[in-house]
């Protein structure tokens, strides 16, 4: 059944779409609130020699699809996934944090073939769902017999500039920047630092920067 749905999904895309792209990119993230929680964690645990790295480097993959249109500004949708990991290996104590985001969004694709040949711009507006998880010594942390997690929801706006090679437009490198106001359930600080009172605000902002390559499927 799953295979059938996927088959119809992809065939429908390839039949009617203007363009379908898969991309993979390096993602840089900057969130003052995440930083502060991890910095506090490192500050109050001098017994851990190796510091917990901040969430900085991640990977992002994206599937997007623009609809057929005669004008230069096209529209479409996109589904993305970002993954970050922060790991500190200390003697007897290996702490790993996992941060996942799923982005579902609408995109506007602009290509002015006369002025900037080969370049295109995307503006993307996403709804973001996220999850933060922690493993200690390779075991998921637990709270009340369930995996201890922090889930969140937010919005995201992304500006992307890419380039289509003239000879083969199958591959196109791109860079993008994005901003997200994001609401995490108040467990975030508890998960990162086992505390709740130091950074009370569950609102998280993050900025991101991506550098990657997109593959045109159709």
């Amino acid at each position, binding site marked *: 059944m799953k295979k059938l749905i996927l088959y119809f999904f992809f065939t429908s895309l390839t039949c009617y779409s203007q363009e379908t792209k898969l991309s993979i990119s390096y993602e840089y993230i900057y969130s003052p609130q995440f930083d502060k929680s991890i910095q506090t964690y490192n500050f109050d645990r001098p017994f851990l020699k190796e510091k917990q790295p901040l969430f900085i480097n991640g990977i992002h993959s994206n599937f997007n699809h623009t609809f057929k249109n005669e004008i230069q500004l096209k529209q479409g949708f996109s589904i993305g996934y970002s993954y970050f990991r922060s790991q500190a290996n200390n003697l007897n*104590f290996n702490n790993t944090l996992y941060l996942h985001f799923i982005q579902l969004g609408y995109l506007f694709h602009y290509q002015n073939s006369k002025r900037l040949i080969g370049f295109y711009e995307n503006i993307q507006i996403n709804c973001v769902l996220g999850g933060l998880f922690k493993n200690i010594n390779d075991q998921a942390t637990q709270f009340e017999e369930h995996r201890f997690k922090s889930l969140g929801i937010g919005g995201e706006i992304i500006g992307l500039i890419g*380039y289509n090679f003239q000879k083969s437009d199958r591959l196109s490198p791109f860079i993008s920047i994005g901003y997200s106001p994001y609401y995490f359930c108040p467990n975030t600080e508890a998960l990162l630092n086992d505390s709740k*009172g130091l950074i009370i605000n569950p609102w998280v902002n993050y900025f991101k920067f991506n550098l990657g390559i997109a593959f045109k499927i159709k």
Partner: protein
Amino acid sequence: MKRREFLKNGFLISIGGVLIPKTILSCRKETLFEESSFSGKVIIIGAGAAGLYAGYILKSKGIDFQILEASNKYGGRIGKNDSFADFPIDNGAQWLHGKNNILSDFILSSNTKITLDDTENMYWFKNNLVKELPKNPEIFDEDNLPDVSFQQYANQKEFGDDYKYIIENLAGDQGASASKLSAYWNHQEEINWVSGDDDYKFEQTYFDFIETQIAKPINNEIKLNTIVKSIDYSSEIITIIDSNNQKYTANKVIITVPISILKKNKIEFTPHLPNEKTEAFSKIGMGAGMKVFLKFSTQFYDDNIVGGSICAAYANEKIGKIGEDNVLLAFIMGEQAEYLTSLGNDDAITLKLLEELDLMYNNQATKSFISSYVNNFTNKPFIEGAYSYSTINIGNSREKAAESIDNKLFFAGEAMNLNGHHQTVFGAAETGYREVINILKNNK
């Protein structure tokens, strides 16, 4: 666009891309206050978990500090007795409540041995020991609880007299009498609890862990037998005077003494603390509490006995320990502890407990009794009680109590924990580092 043009544009774009994160990266340090400009002196009053952890953090930051401790030992409400049984027993705190907390990380990383205590309860109910109760008394975790005492709420829910000491045990866990603990506020304050539900015991003691990992590295900075009598914070330099009239000066003071000491104005402040502050202290509860260890020749008792009218909670002390001796702990809080304290001496307390155990176990207690050890926190001059609890109408008193004054006086200790981790050792430690952060934050 020509290939060369593309390369030029592409190059500029990537330079921009790399530079932006680089600029942000430069202000992204891994640790708070990696370079702190604070060069003053901090005095910490009290060498319990909060004071010791604050000192431990200050030491790691290379900040000048001294801990003044009234008693002749560090640890406060954490301690140990090596001589009563063939395994070390915890005088005060003994269970690590849950694993999502700072000390649990420390325990794991220092390879300190702990074991899960998953022993089951037996209830003393209608003069019988039973495994299960007809009605589940765990009614205090619900939302929309009224701001009435545990006892009143249990009455409202029609838990009759038969459940009186079962409810007393639930309140006793929170260090209070069922008649004084607020159902509403206890729940509200516990909502923030993130540490988890399981209880762990130390193969050695909680004290051993605190001593080797936290106290020893800062031993040189701890001054014992120093009872702080007054704190003058009227000028830039704070002056502290002890009971021998010795003077100490500091730029910042972290006060970690138990809330009972602050409630009773045992330390004089100049100028007086604001009314709002003293009112907040007065609203935080701290009741009587004691631990009595009873050694027997045989283990005739169950691992946990709940609901006695003299002591609502007994626990097998041997769980998680390596040793042969049969030691039963009587964990007594609130009105039960007040009553036993009023008996006046340790023998009378022991006799009362043996009487109750005899009733429960067919006179086996007195027959196999060897010795007892009473550790009454109610009478300890620098503790004066068990731990803080949520009184009716406590409101945001903990927040008010924990607020710093004039960026000079900082308040820590289990009662000042706002994470729902009050009443615990790690909760006290959390307030210790929190106040160091508050000191450094305001002095960048």
